């Protein structure tokens, strides 16, 4: 492998890794407030891309993306209100099955609305062959959009959870739901907010990655599994860890192409998931002692 190729793969890996990290952050937000892993997280990403592509026919790109994010947030809120809000103290098994069912329904609805064709948003700057030369490598400007949007999301999220009253209330619910309720926080609304937030972030990710990865009705599930791998790798609930783990997984995947056939690429990230679940279920950066106190 030449040095140029090495850096080229490195950049590709970082780009994909950051996309996985955004999906993982979506998992983390819902997990932190509810203790639920939302198996329909990948479908939010798909919905964001699909809605933006449809809206693009009637409005300019920035508006279409905003519209897609808002609509997906509404879908997220609707899902929480219809299917999750009124269950009291459901078992983990029940929640897993309900969110899996939801992901199937969203996917099938997308299949009937948009069909099987593969779509994508146009590149935000230039087109498929526009490149920026960075030393030895050439990268698409879209890569900077992906990295930039992810950076802003992580920054805004940490500010949101630290500085705003709403963010603090959500964190209070995550830390101790009963105590939060006693302080007058409406814990049920916080769960709805967390679904909206996570759906919105997923949709935004779906829009910025659409020109690179394309969008299809079933593109959510593989992303969800990689996002979950990253969320576990970085320690469930830890957003900074997710970014680091995402970049790590993306780079491993990018280099794996030169050793194994492309068809096995998914199998590699899943093998990493299995190994990490067996060896360090609390993640690379988490502590085993706190993990034991959490309920999976």
């Amino acid at each position: 492998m030449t040095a140029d190729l090495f850096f080229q793969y490195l950049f590709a890996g970082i780009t994909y890794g950051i996309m996985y990290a955004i999906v993982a952050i979506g998992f983390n937000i819902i997990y932190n407030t509810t203790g639920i892993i939302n198996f329909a997280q990948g479908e939010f990403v798909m919905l964001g891309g699909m809605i933006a592509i449809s809206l693009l026919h009637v409005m300019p790109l920035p508006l279409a993306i905003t519209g897609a994010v808002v609509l997906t947030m509404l879908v997220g809120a609707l899902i929480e209100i219809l299917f999750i809000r009124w269950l009291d103290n459901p078992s983990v098994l029940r929640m897993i099955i309900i969110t899996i069912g939801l992901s199937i329904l969203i996917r099938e609805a997308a299949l009937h609305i948009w069909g099987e064709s593969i779509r994508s948003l146009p590149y935000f700057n230039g087109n498929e062959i526009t490149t920026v030369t960075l030393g030895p490598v050439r990268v698409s400007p879209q890569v900077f959009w992906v990295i930039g949007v992810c950076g802003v999301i992580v920054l805004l999220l940490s500010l949101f959870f630290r500085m705003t009253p709403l963010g603090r209330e959500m964190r209070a619910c995550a830390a101790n739901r009963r105590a939060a309720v006693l302080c007058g926080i409406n814990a049920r609304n916080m769960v709805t907010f967390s679904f909206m937030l996570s759906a919105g972030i997923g949709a935004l990710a779906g829009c910025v990655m659409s020109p690179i990865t394309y969008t299809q009705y079933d593109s959510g599930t593989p992303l969800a599994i990689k996002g979950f791998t990253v969320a576990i790798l970085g320690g469930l609930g830890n957003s900074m860890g997710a970014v680091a783990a995402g970049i790590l997984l993306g780079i491993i995947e990018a280099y794996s192409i030169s050793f194994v056939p492309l068809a096995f690429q998914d199998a590699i990230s899943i093998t990493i998931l299995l190994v990490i679940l067996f060896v360090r279920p609390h993640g690379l950066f988490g502590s085993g002692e706190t993990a034991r106190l959490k309920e999976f």
Partner: protein
Amino acid sequence: MQFTRSRAILCLILLVIAVQVLTRVTGTQFYLTQLTMAAYYALVVIGLTVLMGYAGQISLGHAGFFAIGGYLSAALTTHNLVPYAHSPLVHFLGRIGVLVQGRDIYGEQLLTVTPWAACVLAVVAAAVIALLLGIPVLKLKGHYLAMATLGFGIIIYRIALATDYFGEADGISDVPGFTLLPGIGPVGPLVVNGDFGNRVQNYYIAWGLLIVGMVLLLNLIDSRVGRALRSIHGSEEAAEAAGVDTARCKLQVFVLSAVYAALAGVLLTHYNGGLGPSEASVMKSVRYVALVAVGGMANLWGALVMGVSLTFLSLRGVFGSYDDAVFGAILILVMLFAPDGILGVRPGTLLARLKR
């Protein structure tokens, strides 16, 4: 208890015979094809019921075990070994009598593994894989267990889709019939295949196997092991404190359910004459979970009834292009309104739950 169970099994046997006679009388024997296939799928579902409902361990990868059974048996009985006839391994296999010679439609010589040997090998392979996978995986709980088994299913799907030996996206076709028993005197041979003439025979083979599998599981859950499993579902810590070897129990049931799935995979593949990678897909695994859930989780009879009836409707194409959506909706509705399965629903309690 013993009495009612044997009576229930007897009723099931009578029902199976009655259905066959009814299709004969009304000239609707084409239903038998889907009923046969539904019986094999139901075998996977009842195996999974013991794992999910009684031991409380979710598996989103059982289509993987089904596919291991089906693919191994199909590949071994279909791929021609003539080019490797001089290798020591093939020579050894020939010596112990697990190879069969034949001619394909062009008159070329064929050398393949016999279906019996392939079936045993496929089921043993599934059991060994379940054992090796189960040791680490069953230490996990909840979401982690679900994701790990889901991951296993996807790996099997990817392998089937990307390996030349397993036919890649086309799958394997022209799988020969599986002669369970050779013909003796006036009695013809017992063959699992898709010939129209063998339709009635295959219907009874599939349902016979399903009933035997059912009896074994019913006995299992009423035994010492069954009580241990239910205690694990209730509280793993309490079961452990009471002296149940929880890890061992869970592993045994995991392997058992994998064997059920693999056996169903082997026989259904011989019956259909082939299989494709979609049999290993995540959606299939989810479908098995949906059938277990709609049957009432810890309810073998519910799983049998719902497994057969819903699979039959799906195979008849009743749900059209909404097939997957129907199973997704079933999952959600059952888990929201009837976590004990739709056979356990009392209208009064459902109303009370809705009013709240």
